[in-house]
């Protein structure tokens, strides 16, 4: 009796889903772009041609040339090197904040959906209120009251991510709860914790992963937008949004100051959206291709 394994269908691994995802090529392209960007950011020390903070008074506001591909800024710093180092902050904040939002939001969502009742009602109501507030303004307010720092940025963005993941995880858990294998688990006398996190969680992961890939884009966009407004990691640390801001303040002095970091942000956004769309098409057979 006790050695009967509870049936737990895991759908993410279905080969047809993989084939659907790769057919368009967008997912693969997005993944390659993101991996390359992560490598460049991780190896910034060796990849970047200059020290991002080194000032060269002889080379102020020079346009793109062979010595400085992306030109130099008002302090004579190499824009390319600053963009490469800035990737570290943007990607780090994006990944950590999203991860925190995913973990916390999913756990709360699964618990809420699994137990139902009063806890669920309260959590759902709170989620609805949080979601009704514009995410960007919420993040802005949080950083404004907490004060701009790396830790507070991650905290603020993670907080804005949590309600979205609660909603997704709760909805999927509600659907899963009706399935036979959950009843089978209960019949076998498994505890609630074991059912929730060993049996339900793996089965709702594909929806959480799709959401996470799209949220990664939102998190990075929020970080760079806040940095642009002046609520990012304080200078002189190079961040994409911060570099754009400096370039924007000198808009008439040189287009390269703001255009190159802008393109870097755009590249990440496109890559992440391609991944998100590819994953969604792969996990949802009804989605129009």
């Amino acid at each position, binding site marked *: 009796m006790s050695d009967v394994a509870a049936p737990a269908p895991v759908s993410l691994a279905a080969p047809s889903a993989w084939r659907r995802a790769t057919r368009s090529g967008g997912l693969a392209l997005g993944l390659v772009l993101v991996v390359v960007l992560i490598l460049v950011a991780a190896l910034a020390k060796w990849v970047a041609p200059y020290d991002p903070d080194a000032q060269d008074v002889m080379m102020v506001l020079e346009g793109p040339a062979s010595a400085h591909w992306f030109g130099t800024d008002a302090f004579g710093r190499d824009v390319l090197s600053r963009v490469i180092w800035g990737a570290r902050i943007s990607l780090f904040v994006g990944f950590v904040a999203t991860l925190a939002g995913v973990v916390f939001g999913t756990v709360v969502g699964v618990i809420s959906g699994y137990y139902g009742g009063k806890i669920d009602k309260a959590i759902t*109501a709170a989620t*609805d*209120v*949080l979601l*009704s*507030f*514009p*995410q*960007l*303004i919420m993040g*802005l*307010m*949080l950083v*404004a*009251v*907490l*004060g701009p720092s790396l830790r507070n940025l991650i905290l603020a963005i993670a907080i804005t991510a949590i309600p979205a993941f609660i909603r997704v995880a709760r909805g999927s858990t509600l659907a899963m709860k009706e399935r036979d294998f959950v009843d089978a688990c209960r019949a076998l006398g498994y505890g609630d914790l074991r059912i929730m996190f060993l049996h339900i969680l793996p089965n709702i992961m594909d929806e959480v992963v799709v959401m996470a890939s799209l949220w990664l*884009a939102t998190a990075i*966009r929020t970080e*760079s*937008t806040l940095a*642009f*407004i*002046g*609520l990012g990691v304080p200078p002189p640390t190079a961040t994409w*949004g911060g570099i*754009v801001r400096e*370039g*924007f303040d000198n*808009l*008439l002095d040189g*287009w390269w100051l*703001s*255009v190159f970091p*802008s393109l870097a*942000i*755009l590249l990440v*956004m*496109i890559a992440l*959206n*391609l991944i998100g*769309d590819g994953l969604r098409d792969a996990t949802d057979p009804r*989605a*129009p291709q």
Partner: protein
Amino acid sequence: MLRFVAKRLALAVPTLWAVLTLVFVLVRIVPGDPTIVILGDQASPAARAALRERLGLDQPLWSQYWDFMVQILHGDLGRSLVTNRPIITDVGAVLPFTIELTVAALVIGVVIGVPLGVMAARRRDGFADWFARIFSLAGLSFPAFVSGILLLICFAVQLRWFPVISTANASDPMERLRALVLPAFNLGLIMVAYVTRVTRSGMLKALGEDYIRTARAKGLPQRIVVWRHALRNVLIPIVTVIGLYLGVLIGNAVVTEIVFNRPGLGKLIVTALNQRDYALLQGLMVVSAFAIVVANILTDLTYGLVDPRVKTA
């Protein structure tokens, strides 16, 4: 219809209360002593005590909450810590600019997004479809400040078609309109992307429905079948998506105003941040909360217009 409106308005009250409570909590999670944050650590204890009293921070929390709610019910957002002007006056002065921008972006989103989505769905994998897909991917990918700066560099700095420094305040309506074009397109781009996407997928689904076959069996030309019979049904998901992304739109309106240096809520937020004017910040959050609640009500009322099942149910 009137009962539907009344019911919807009644439903908004608890939401508004919850969102206002959220604002109250948010502004009070400032770590440390808010008077030090505002005045700096050089301030004298007397000045800090005076500020504390002015902010009502000497009162117990529940009483602060009560005062906060009562004030808002009277349409009073308090006074700025810096200028001591009533916040409602400052907000009222710039609100029309933000509304103007948001509405223009919405119109652009619908006027471009809907036809693009319809054309994409009619010829799957055709030219319009590819264009729509690339366009919507770009629209979803561009952070508002990035697209704004690129538009500014391209059309204002290089081509000089539009002013670099916003002339939204100009009394000449043509000049005001000219100042609106770039920001509205910048903000509208995002809406175009969302609307194109939902229109395309909605039309693909609708064109396969039985009632489309019925319409064709009546001998209606393809044009009427598509634009009347199919699109009328797709209006429902389109309204849903617009309602869902109004929050995103409002957030991006703030960013767009900063990039284009337009008067509006965005610039006021930056002022509040730079001057550590927490009273102004709180007031602006309350205004955003109201904006969201109003936007949601308008969305639901629009449902009543596009879906007969809502108002007669």
